[in-house]
């Protein structure tokens, strides 16, 4: 079992470096997930995103998620990097690499980690729309 790697960074993500952290002769499978800045969302055009984090808590929550994943699957290694700051179109906001003996485990753990990250890790995204407006995305907020 390799040590987990977690990083919240304002530098561009080197996803090959993230992936190399999890590769091992003990594993038959590696899954890498990356979130990238998409131009169109529900018909609206994004020009850039800004990400903000509560870094100490984000680190702690990510460690918790990795523990949860390890309790469910025989994960060999996990490496997670999340970018903060100003991201242009196509740039990588998050990279999650998981290695495991067999492929099903790596797919399931990878998907679990990004799903849970979006639920509990204190990081926020602000959309900068092409019409000049900007808007924080706060998913569960109802306008009522």
């Amino acid at each position: 079992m390799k040590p987990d790697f977690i990083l919240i960074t304002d530098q561009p993500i080197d996803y090959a470096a993230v992936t190399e952290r999890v590769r091992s002769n003990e594993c038959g499978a590696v899954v890498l997930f990356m979130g990238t800045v998409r131009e169109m969302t529900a018909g609206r055009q994004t020009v850039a995103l800004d990400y903000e984090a509560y870094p100490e808590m984000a680190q702690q929550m990510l460690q918790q998620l990795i523990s949860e994943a390890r309790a469910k699957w025989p994960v060999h290694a996990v490496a997670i990097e999340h970018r903060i700051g100003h991201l242009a179109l196509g740039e990588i906001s998050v990279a999650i690499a998981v290695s495991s003996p067999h492929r099903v485990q790596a797919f399931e753990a990878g998907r679990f980690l990004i799903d849970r990250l979006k639920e509990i890790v204190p990081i926020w995204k602000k959309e900068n729309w092409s019409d000049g407006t900007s808007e924080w995305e706060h998913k569960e907020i109802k306008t009522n």
Partner: protein
Amino acid sequence: MTAQQIQIKLFARARELAESDLISVAVSEGITVAALRLAIADQFPQLKPLTGQLLIAVDNAYAGEDQTLNEKQEVACFPPVSGG
């Protein structure tokens, strides 16, 4: 009950609405998270657009509503997360 000030870190839209990344809220000693919410809403009306949506974290973990607070802890307040 003795009054005390609790420093609260703010993030994202909460930070922008309050125009500060740190606010100080006057509360009674041993206040619960639930009561802290009311104190925040009372003392920082700028945060009203986020009423009912704000999450409270204590020492880098999500706090339960009945949890009591002291000055030594790190308290943070923010809207639902949207990373990834």
